[in-house]
């Protein structure tokens, strides 16, 4: 069947990409100037310490064996110990990852419905003042650095109005309400970053559908406006809109890195940045792998959704 084959092809493409990403991440250690263990420990490390680290990083094995070994250990969750704190990485990773997912999911839960509704409304009432507002907003969202938006929200809502706390740190002891209250500002920043883009793309998708001859036909048949939207336009716009949503979520997942640093939120992004500056290469590798895999997964979803909802893509020229 054409459809299954197409999806299998996309899946295969994504897997190849993922494999390439793992190789790239693995090569990071290989590319350390000189001997990796010496480079990580610095010049005045004792030979014993260097030898221990070599063993820990499996540097004495040949590269291919080391790559397969690393991949196998990552797959079963044996992530080793952090080079700076000497504590096991896996439990830390679990906390950080769930914090980041909590933040990203909250932001997505606000941004996605809002963007779809606003995009739909602005497509139906195009050429009005709302349109102008949207184009100004999307210009701002592609031009403003993440930290600018973050600090503006921080200054206005946390400092001047005092509605939300300045620090967004959360811990498991807090109730869900308290946690949500604390992440309002970082979540809002993320919403600001993806909302305009999603809105504009939704609007474009709906306008595109509305310009089709069958919509005109429905109008001429005497269908009501509501019927046209619900029965003719919406079903055909679902595909492109879902595609936009998945792409925006991929963007959101990466955008989370800077936002977490602005609000000192204990998530995966902040951990990765922290580990980069400390050259804690094992942590950097696993964080990079998770971000990369999520990004590829969401892009794959966007691709598959587009194929599912648009029969034309099933028959490439």
């Amino acid at each position, binding site marked *: 069947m054409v459809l299954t084959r197409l999806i299998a092809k996309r899946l295969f493409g*994504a897997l*190849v*990409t993922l494999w*390439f*990403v793992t190789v*790239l*991440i693995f090569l*990071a*250690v290989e*590319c*350390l*100037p000189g001997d990796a263990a010496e480079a990580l420990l610095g010049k005045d490390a004792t030979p014993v310490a260097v030898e221990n680290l070599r063993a820990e990083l499996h540097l004495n094995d040949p590269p291919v064996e080391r790559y397969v070994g690393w991949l196998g250990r990552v797959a079963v969750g044996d992530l080793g110990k952090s080079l700076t704190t000497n504590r096991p990485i896996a439990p830390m990773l679990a906390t950080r990852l769930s914090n980041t997912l909590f933040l990203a999911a909250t932001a997505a839960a606000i941004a996605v419905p809002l963007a779809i509704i606003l995009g739909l409304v602005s497509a139906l009432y195009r050429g009005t003042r709302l349109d102008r507002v949207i184009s100004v907003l999307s*210009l*701002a969202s*592609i*031009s*403003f*650095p*993440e*930290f*600018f938006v973050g*600090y*503006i929200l*921080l*200054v206005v809502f946390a*400092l*001047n109005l005092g509605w939300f706390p*300045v620090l967004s740190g959360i811990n498991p002891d807090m109730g869900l309400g308290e946690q949500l209250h604390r992440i309002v500002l970082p979540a809002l920043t993320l919403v600001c970053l993806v909302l305009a883009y999603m809105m504009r793309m939704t609007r474009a998708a709906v306008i595109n559908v509305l310009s089709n001859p069958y919509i005109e036909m429905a109008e001429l048949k005497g269908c009501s406006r509501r019927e046209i939207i619900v029965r003719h336009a919406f079903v055909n716009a679902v595909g492109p809109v879902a595609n936009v949503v998945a792409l925006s979520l*991929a963007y959101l*997942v*990466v955008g989370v*890195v*800077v936002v977490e*640093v*602005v609000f000192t939120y204990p998530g995966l992004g902040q951990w*990765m*940045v922290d*580990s*980069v*500056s400390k*050259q804690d*290469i094992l942590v*950097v*590798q696993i964080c*990079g792998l998770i*971000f*990369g895999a999520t*990004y*590829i997964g969401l*892009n794959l979803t966007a691709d598959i959704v587009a194929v599912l909802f648009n029969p034309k893509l099933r028959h490439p020229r």
Partner: protein
Amino acid sequence: MTRFTRLRGFPLSTWLPLGVLVVITLAVAVGPAFLPYRAEEIVGDLWEPMSWAHPLGTDQLGRDMLARVLEGGRTSLSLAAVIAGLAFLFGSGAGLTAAFLGGWVDTALSRAVDLLMAFPPLIFALLTIAVLGNSIPVLVTVLTLFEALRIFRLTRSLAMEIAVQEFVAVARLRGEGIGWILFREILPNGMVPLMAELAIRFVFGLLFLSSLSFLGLGVPPPAPDWGGMVRDNAPAVSFGLSAPLVPAAMIAIVAVCVNLVADSLLHTRGRSRSAEG
């Protein structure tokens, strides 16, 4: 029609951002010479509010914010410009080559680009910096690579679109060489969208570099740059002061203006085409 009279036809929404950009560039280029303070000089208390002596206040060490912003702009803007320029050179070169040679060269280049574009640039940059450190050459290389990918795609598709037009066939039949066809027939016709893309790449480079600097992994000290200044002044926020907003706003202003200019470049093309057509 000369270039100047054509520029005059642009609306206010093009002139205004263009004017702002010229003012900022001039201020950054020659401004520091006219200021009474140098960027490294400590001239007052930390985070002084805006005053006549210090129009933008002072920074976290009591240095004049205006002098710092101008000095930081030199670093940020010139690096972003270098990155965009290099990316344009490599990206459009590779794109033209792929489009013109076709065959396995095109397939290999396109696949490689697709593969790299499937990886989020920020994460790639973080990985690279973790390994090689955050020196200027490393930053420029990584950013140029990711910028060149986009330019490659655009150049390739533009070149393929233009290469099938009649005037290219005519040039071929006239017996013109590859060089003539590429640089006299194809490139000039794709210049406007490429220029707009160059502007957009500049913005992306500026934002990306500033983000890295903000994370403490961008332009290494002591050279001030806008993203790094935001990071250095960030603690002021918890005292209710808006010092980090000054360099952040500069980045935003430049980005908005360049985007507006790029936008109008693309729109004018559409208008002149329909007028001629």
